[in-house]
């Protein structure tokens, strides 16, 4: 076992870890040793080829096929230098005041969070795409919403020089998306922060962390690790966990640190989602242009969000219900497809949690509550109305049986799309906004950390990622994660106890 010593070790390099790394750049400039450990590899720009079967397995944890313990939902999260900020669409929403205040976390000041989020939005070039760069898949959503009586809103996104490849979820092939891999991590490295990729955190001990650095497999994408393969024991003054809502609770559970709250792993939420598709009579621009430019927020009224989206052939095929001739017919209509992603705003409920198996591997337990199913049904019905209002000839709804609704069935949407058809294991449900597991709160009986991500009872240990959310955020989470990570880093710099 190789021994190393650092002042601060950050686990994870996504929205949380990347932000903390940048904020601690000053420490590195002052001669302190700051290290970021990232489980995934670092990619050369030339490796982003936009091909589904070469990029998805390289960029996503478990090659994009992480299943819940019940086997009824797939969870998508990045595993790369930059974490999930490499594979999201760049949607950058301000923290929602209603939700943050509703969390009721003592000491969590909304205005502080908001101002931090604005700082990162500016840093990452967040803006609205000009109308001439919007494709028809997005414009039809806006048009359909208007005709169906809804008001679509435009997503602020963090791109610079977007060429409209539509391949955001496979890592931008044009280096346009401003994730932490483009902004915060390079800034941190310029300041002297060290980043080691292919480095998996195995266990935390008292002011130390055990790490395994993996060798690059022959033929695989990504650069070799900066360190030689092997096992390391790294002593640290402070450790900041930012390994995602799955990775962070799992690491804590594996470590079994004395005094740790029993709440670790509890409170997992994720915005369960369906991909819906509708067929138009004519080809539309859908696989060119930014894929996710608009959304419809019905979180308060009906417990769901709708977002424009456009996926790749295998992902689309997997998410459409059924098989055989009807499925194939829709797949072969790809140039005429409009797509909407429906997301249910789920709540943290007992039983939905992150655990570890006997080998220490993360296991996510998630059951769909009746409220979540009802939200998905309402969202699917609203989407069907929007599709038909936009002129679609037929709509594919997974919670209809058969799943294809013809245009003349539009008046029967409520009957055709129904909760009785929501059968777990039959319908594809996926989620990419993974939240909770180390929730903030007032003390160890109700939470894992305080509002600054300080782990209750362990002053040298911090959390700075989406696992801090005590409940669902109800929107796309990246800017809120960055804001919370910024707060955690700021408090770490203020505190002297760990130094």
């Amino acid at each position, binding site marked *: 076992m190789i021994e190393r010593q650092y002042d601060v070790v950050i686990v994870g390099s996504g929205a949380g870890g990347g932000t903390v790394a940048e904020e601690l750049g000053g420490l590195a400039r002052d001669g302190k040793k700051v290290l970021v450990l990232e489980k995934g590899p670092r990619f050369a720009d030339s490796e982003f080829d936009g091909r589904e079967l070469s990029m998805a397995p390289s960029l996503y944890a478990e090659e994009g096929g992480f299943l819940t313990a019940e086997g009824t939902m797939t969870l998508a999260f990045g595993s790369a230098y930059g974490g999930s900020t490499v594979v999201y669409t760049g949607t950058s929403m301000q923290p929602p005041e209603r939700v943050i205040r509703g969390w009721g976390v003592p000491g969590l000041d909304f205005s502080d969070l908001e101002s931090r989020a604005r700082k990162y939005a500016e840093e990452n070039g967040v803006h609205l795409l000009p109308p001439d760069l919007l494709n028809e898949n997005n414009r039809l959503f806006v048009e359909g919403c208007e005709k169906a009586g809804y008001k679509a809103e435009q997503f602020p996104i963090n791109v610079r020089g977007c060429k409209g*490849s539509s391949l955001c979820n496979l890592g931008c092939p044009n280096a346009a998306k401003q994730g932490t891999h483009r902004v915060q991590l390079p800034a941190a490295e310029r300041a002297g922060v060290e980043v080691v990729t292919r480095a998996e955190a195995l266990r935390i001990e008292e002011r130390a962390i055990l790490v395994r650095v993996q060798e690059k497999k022959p033929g695989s994408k990504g650069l070799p690790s900066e360190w030689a393969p092997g096992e390391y024991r790294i002593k640290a003054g402070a450790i900041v966990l930012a390994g995602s809502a799955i990775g962070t609770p799992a690491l804590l559970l594996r470590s079994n640190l004395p005094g740790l709250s029993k709440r670790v792993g509890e409170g997992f939420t994720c915005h369960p989602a369906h991909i819906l598709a509708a067929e138009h009579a004519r080809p539309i621009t859908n696989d060119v242009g930014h894929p996710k430019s608009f959304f419809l927020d019905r979180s308060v009224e009906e417990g769901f969000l709708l977002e424009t989206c456009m996926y790749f*052939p295998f992902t689309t095929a997997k998410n459409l219900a059924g098989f055989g001739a009807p499925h194939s017919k829709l*797949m072969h209509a790809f140039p005429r497809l409009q797509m909407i992603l429906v997301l249910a705003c789920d709540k943290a409920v007992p039983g939905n949690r992150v655990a570890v198996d006997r080998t220490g591997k993360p296991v996510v337990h998630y059951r769909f509550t009746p409220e979540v199913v009802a939200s998905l049904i309402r969202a699917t019905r609203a989407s069907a109305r929007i599709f038909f209002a936009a002129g679609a000839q037929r709509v594919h709804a997974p919670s209809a049986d058969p799943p294809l609704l013809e245009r003349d069935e539009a008046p029967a949407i409520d009957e055709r799309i129904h909760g009785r058809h929501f*059968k777990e294991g039959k319908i594809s449900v996926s989620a990419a906004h993974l939240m909770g597991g180390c929730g903030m709160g007032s003390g160890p009986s109700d939470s894992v950390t305080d509002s600054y991500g300080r782990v209750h009872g362990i002053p040298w240990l911090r959390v700075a990622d989406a696992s801090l959310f005590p409940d669902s955020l109800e929107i796309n989470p990246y800017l809120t994660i960055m804001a919370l990570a910024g707060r955690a880093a700021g408090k770490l710099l203020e505190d002297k106890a760990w130094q």
Partner: protein
Amino acid sequence: MARFFPQNGLPCLMPSSPFDSVRQVFRSVAATVVPEAVRLDEQGWTELEQIIAQALESRPAGLRRQLALFVRALDLLPVFRYGRTFQGLDAARRNAFLLGIQDAPLLLLRRGFWGLRTLIFMGYYGREEGRAETGYRADPRGWEAPR
């Protein structure tokens, strides 16, 4: 093991398919899930199976065994309803049988079929030809690509 050239163009050793022992049943199921698969020649099937094999390479051996077992069960279960194995059924009955499995009261069966159809879609639409058939044309050059 033979040498295999996946889509990233880098040569690697060909992983063995979990369906080697049930190849004909697997292909019958795959051609019911994606009817166009009946047109695949031996090279096309090999490519489809290799995509799946590669995706499963890092998964536990137990999972690969379960998948093969599930495919074998799909072949035998129709005997109870139709008096014939899956391979002995005509296309319409194969379709009806799999619809029943997809909708089975037992979650284990539904999950098993969902997993299998996912792998079949991956194998079929993961091929250059399968993707091209759909008309999907995304290009890293985006708006600048000739369309």
